């Protein structure tokens, strides 16, 4: 409000006392000489505000006068006259105020006030003052034990000062100074008089000494200020003077002053009552609503809205979720807040603003001409997003209610976009990695998290909606507005969008942002069939190495990305990769848990934290699809392998057993029923493939309905069929290699419906890799098997071969170690010396 005071106040806290005294000074003078009434009013107005900013109990009478205006309910009979008069005749109020100010030294006045219900802050300050008083008393007699106890209490109280939205209580500083003095004195005296303290006394003395030292280190400025100003304060003869030249600006605001006072007092009460029991928050909300209607300046509106939103959130902090109606109101409030901020560009709401001593004073504009107000739009938006998620979790995903609720994501997304634009405006590029930038990053992360799992179409849709809601002139620095003529399948747009959102997050210092972003990025690429990009990103992120120690939520993210990548590999027909990627999750008995899609096993109690990890239904990855893809991939890999090695079970120790186990279980069944679920289909297909009947296998796999969930299910079925043909051929060769001597390639090509050249290339691969001892005879167009009984090693020879292989591996590993790994350090000292001398060279 008053420019002059807020500057001085913020600039140098050490001037506080000075200011107060000078204020009182002025007050006196204004009473005495009323040459210019306007000026006088202005001054007293400023004064009263200044007083309001004061924390100390004895200065609070002004405050309470103000309070009277706003809340007639808590005031005394006798004061009501004043209040009434004040309302009618503003000036006389100030005169009265001035009078009161002049009398403020008297105790009776403050006595009066104690009848008035005290605010928590006052109470708090009073308590501190009392304690300090006692400490002072005890310190006179050097009663260390009681001082110790009292000081402990005091310290406990003092740490709570941020809760009251005030700086360090000055009484506490005073206490520190007193203690310091006493301790110093005692030390000095101790040398002379060797008065012994008993054990407990000396112990508590030491404790006090340490604590006092520690606390004084925390507040060096305040201490210095006190030491300097205490004298000035005490020797207050009216010599201190500060010239005040009130500006016209201040005068203009005068008219709205009364309601404002009123309003901020109410706000203050609400702030103080936050987090307390037996507070009717609904009533508070209602009153805030009324205030908002009356509020005139943007600052007032912003302050009210900030509080209103927080209180509304508080109201449902205990509940599982916020009811949709309330949620919508909150959403409305936040967007109203953004409206106001957009309309009044010089106001900025940020977490990094300094906490004001008194909310009633509008903070002064900083060097850039921007007025910073404490608050966090990022938190509001995050909270809104979290609330909708928890509500969705509570709903039955198959109900219409769920879908209705899901529609609320659209306005939320608009809000996310708007707040991102707001922060983009506020946060300069250079500060992106600073704390201020992290607010932007949080909003961006939320935006990213609300789109990364969606198909392009949906993203474009929500983008269009969101941008339509934003003023046409606005545009984003991070990623430009979506032009309306873009088609619904604009992959380049969404890719670009996600790339640029992520790149903002990658620049953040906090690794959580980066990790989340990269996982979302991978997920999205995988979803859009950009397998290689996603895979490279995953490899470059090196997340695999550290994910085990990450927090569960991140692990879930990671698993989701991994699974999505696996599915993407499957769609591309990269069978080996699919198996590798999906194996861990698909074979785990705790699939659901790993993907954050529910708890697999029956858990007695589900903690809040467990619930938070869960994802709402619409984000889920279809588990059946996952399993189906994994088992199909395994089928294509394992069936030929089983044919290749008769002693497959023993040999392939390292290969995943999941598939084999399921297959064996299936084979043990006495009766083969017609296949019912996807797994049945796959197992029957595996058996068919084992008999080289690729047609049947393809038919069985094609019957699985879940493939329809893939975008292009027909081509996937085709891919599976062609893979089946190849694998069937391989299985055939493996199974029959010991029985046949020749095999016509033409026949093979007919049986497996593959081109001859393709057959040849498959066979060539087998031969080249020495899986089959044979060669292709070009003349006769046959595959000639070499049956050489003698060359088959016997048991002992086989063992020897294995042993020599293993030895070779050990040596190879050792080589690798010696090249890049750890070296024997025979003499570390010598080594160090040599190294340094080498550096010099």
């Amino acid at each position, binding site marked *: 409000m008053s420019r002059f005071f807020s500057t001085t106040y913020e600039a140098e806290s050490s001037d506080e006392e000075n200011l107060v005294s000078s204020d009182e000074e002025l007050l006196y003078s204004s009473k005495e000489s009323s040459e210019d009434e306007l000026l006088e009013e202005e001054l007293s107005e400023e004064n009263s505000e200044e007083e309001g900013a004061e924390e100390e109990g004895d200065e609070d009478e002004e405050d309470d006068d103000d309070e009277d205006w706003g809340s007639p309910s808590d005031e005394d009979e006798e004061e009501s006259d004043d209040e009434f008069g004040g309302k009618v005749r503003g000036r006389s109020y100030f005169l009265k105020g001035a009078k009161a100010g002049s009398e403020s030294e008297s105790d009776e006045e403050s006595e009066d006030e104690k009848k008035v219900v005290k605010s928590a802050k006052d109470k708090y300050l009073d308590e501190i003052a009392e304690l300090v008083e006692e400490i002072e008393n005890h310190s006179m007699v050097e009663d260390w034990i009681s001082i110790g106890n009292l000081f402990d209490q005091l310290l406990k109280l003092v740490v709570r000062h941020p809760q009251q939205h005030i700086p360090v209580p000055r009484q506490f500083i005073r206490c520190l100074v007193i203690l310091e003095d006493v301790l110093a004195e005692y030390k000095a005296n101790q040398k002379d008089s060797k008065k012994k303290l008993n054990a407990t006394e000396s112990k508590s003395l030491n404790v006090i000494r340490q604590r006092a030292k520690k606390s004084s280190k925390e507040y060096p400025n305040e201490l210095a200020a006190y030491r300097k100003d205490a004298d000035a304060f005490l020797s207050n003869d009216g010599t201190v003077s500060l010239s005040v030249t009130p500006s016209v600006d201040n005068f203009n605001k005068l008219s709205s002053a009364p309601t404002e006072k009123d309003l901020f007092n109410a706000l203050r009460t609400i702030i103080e009552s936050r987090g307390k029991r037996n507070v009717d928050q609904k009533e508070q909300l209602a009153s805030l609503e009324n205030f908002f209607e009356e509020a005139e300046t943007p600052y007032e509106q912003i302050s009210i809205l900030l509080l209103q939103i927080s209180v509304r959130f508080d109201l449902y902090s205990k509940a599982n979720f916020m009811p949709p109606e309330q949620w919508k109101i909150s959403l409305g409030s936040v967007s109203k807040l953004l409206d106001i901020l957009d309309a009044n560009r010089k106001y900025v709401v940020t977490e990094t603003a300094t906490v004001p001593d008194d909310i009633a004073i509008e903070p002064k504009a900083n060097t850039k001409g921007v007025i910073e107000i404490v608050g966090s739009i990022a938190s509001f938006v995050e909270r809104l997003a979290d609330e909708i998620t928890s509500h969705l979790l509570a709903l039955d995903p198959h109900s219409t209610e769920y879908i209705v609720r899901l529609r609320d994501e659209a306005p939320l997304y608009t809000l996310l976009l708007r707040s991102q634009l707001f922060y983009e405006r506020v946060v300069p590029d250079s500060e992106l990695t600073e704390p201020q930038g992290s607010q932007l990053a949080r909003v961006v992360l939320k935006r990213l998290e609300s789109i990364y799992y969606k198909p392009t179409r949906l993203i474009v849709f929500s983008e269009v909606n969101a941008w339509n809601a934003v003023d046409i002139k606005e545009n984003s620095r991070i990623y430009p507005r979506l032009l309306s003529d873009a088609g619904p399948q604009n992959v380049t747009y969404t890719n670009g969008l996600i790339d640029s959102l992520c790149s903002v997050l990658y620049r953040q210092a906090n690794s959580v942002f980066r990790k989340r972003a990269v996982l979302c990025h991978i997920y999205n690429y995988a979803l859009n069939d950009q397998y290689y990009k996603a895979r490279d990103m995953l490899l470059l992120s090196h997340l695999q190495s550290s994910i085990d120690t990450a927090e569960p939520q991140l692990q879930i993210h990671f698993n989701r990305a991994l699974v999505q990548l696996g599915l993407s590999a499957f769609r591309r027909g990269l069978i080996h990769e699919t198996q590798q990627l999906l194996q861990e999750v698909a074979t785990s008995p705790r699939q659901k848990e790993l993907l954050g899609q529910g708890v697999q096993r029956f858990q007695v109690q589900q903690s809040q934290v467990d619930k938070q990890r869960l994802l709402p239904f619409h984000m889920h990855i279809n588990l059946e699809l996952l399993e189906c893809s994994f088992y199909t991939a395994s089928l294509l890999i394992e069936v030929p392998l089983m044919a290749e090695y008769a002693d497959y079970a023993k040999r392939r120790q390292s290969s995943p057993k999941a598939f084999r186990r399921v297959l064996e279980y299936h084979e043990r069944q006495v009766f083969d029923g017609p296949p019912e679920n996807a797994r049945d289909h796959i197992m029957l297909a595996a058996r068919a493939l084992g008999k080289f009947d690729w047609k049947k296998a393809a038919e069985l796999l094609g019957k699985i309905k879940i493939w329809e969930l893939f975008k292009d299910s027909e081509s996937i079925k085709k891919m599976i069929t062609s893979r089946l043909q190849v694998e069937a051929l391989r299985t055939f060769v493996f199974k029959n290699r010991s029985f046949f001597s020749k095999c016509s390639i033409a026949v093979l090509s007919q049986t497996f419906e593959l081109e001859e050249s393709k057959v040849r290339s498959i*066979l060539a*691969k087998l031969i080249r890799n020495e899986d089959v001892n044979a060669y292709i005879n*070009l003349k006769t167009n046959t595959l000639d098997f070499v049956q050489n009984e003698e060359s088959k090693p016997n048991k002992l020879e086989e063992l*020897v071969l294995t042993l020599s292989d293993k030895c070779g591996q050990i040596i190879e590993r050792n080589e690798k170690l*010696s090249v890049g790994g750890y070296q*024997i350090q025979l003499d570390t000292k010598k080594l160090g010396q040599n190294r340094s001398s080498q550096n010099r060279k």
Partner: protein
Amino acid sequence: MSTEQQEFRLSEEQLEIARKYDLTEKFVQFLDRHLVYPLIENLEFSHDPLEVENWEYNLLKDTYMTKFIEEKWLDLHPGEPLPKEFEEKQTRINDELVSLNESTKKTLDILSSQEVQESLKQDKSYNRDYLAKNHGIDDAKIYELYRFGKFQYNRGDYVMASDLLNNFRLLSTNQELNFSATWGKLAAEIISFSWSEAMNELNKLREVIDNRNYEGSTLDQLNKRTWLIHYSLFIFFNGNFTASDAGIDMTNAEDAELNEAVAEETAISEEANDSNKDKNKNLSTMIDLFLSSSYKSTIQASCPWILRYVIVALLQTQQYKRLRDVVRAVDVETYEFQDPFTQLLETLFVSFEFDNLSSLVEQISVLIETDFFVSNLDGQQLIQNLQELIFNTVTKVYEGITVEYLSKLFNEDVSVVEKFLEKKKDKVTIEEDGTILVRRQAPASVYQQVYEKTKAFNFKANQILNTAFNRAEI
């Protein structure tokens, strides 16, 4: 093999291939502009000469090689007078040259004086103190050496630049500047064909970059490695430059002072007459470097096109077995980079679709002639090795192949194939109908197999131990 000859030989199609698989564009971002010059010059035969000249001009117009730039400009704009800015630039550069020359002259004189030479020691800080105390050479003076070196390099006086940078490095303790001075020296040495010097610089850089406590970020390290890989190709492939090579003309035209360089170059070309051994040795070093895990992943991550040179080197040095190591990388990078060389590997080791071979071989033979680096090698030898590799693979799988079939694969005349088979008389017999019979080795007995597998163990173990001890002793 001068460029004119190639122009004659290459058909339109072949030019197409050469253009399609040209890597110059990729290289530009990882080389100094002075080093890019020979690459671009090499494009002359496959692109419009005027266009190439234009590129050359654009490439070098920001350097201080004014004479050269002027010439190029005149070539591009025949009949037009030189724009004024050239003159201004010339005078500006001359001024700077004079001023830098003067300011460093004293320092250099002092450094070269007998007395100073004798009193300098290994200890850098001691040297600095000594010079500062007795001769008034302070950090600023030393830094001037760096600036002058950079300036000379920009002017195209590479020998001088390399000298200056060397002096600077001896005195400066600023790690960062030393590092970039080393880069500068490496480039200068490469352009002036002092390969062994360049190799030294390369190793120095590697020491810094591969240091486990490398100071920069991982990304930075990756980038530095990429640069290093690209720079090193010059050294490894050009171990013996032929005199007619393009690069030297440029430097000659630019600077008459380069007499030394020319002398050096003739010396080198004499060396060039040595057998392929040196070249192969170079390439083997390169293979070892590029296939070491950190460089292999660098190649995969940031410059898959280098795979071409790895493959070529392996072919040239006949290390067929190691090709398999590359196959994996080639396979992984298929989606990012493909050229006839990688496709060859795919065909021979992954897909076995031999029908593609003939066209691949044709493309490869074009690239062998046109690629800036590969063309320095013995193309004939390379093709022969390639044929050998194909022959080995095909005969392993197929029985009863005919000479015609082989000639198709080799993309050569039957007579060539026959000559080729002639050399393999002990293994191969050709029947009357043209079928080739290859004597197959019976699978080795188990004893033999075990012996083969284990015979190197002792040696290897000793080697490991030795390296371990050596490291400890360093």
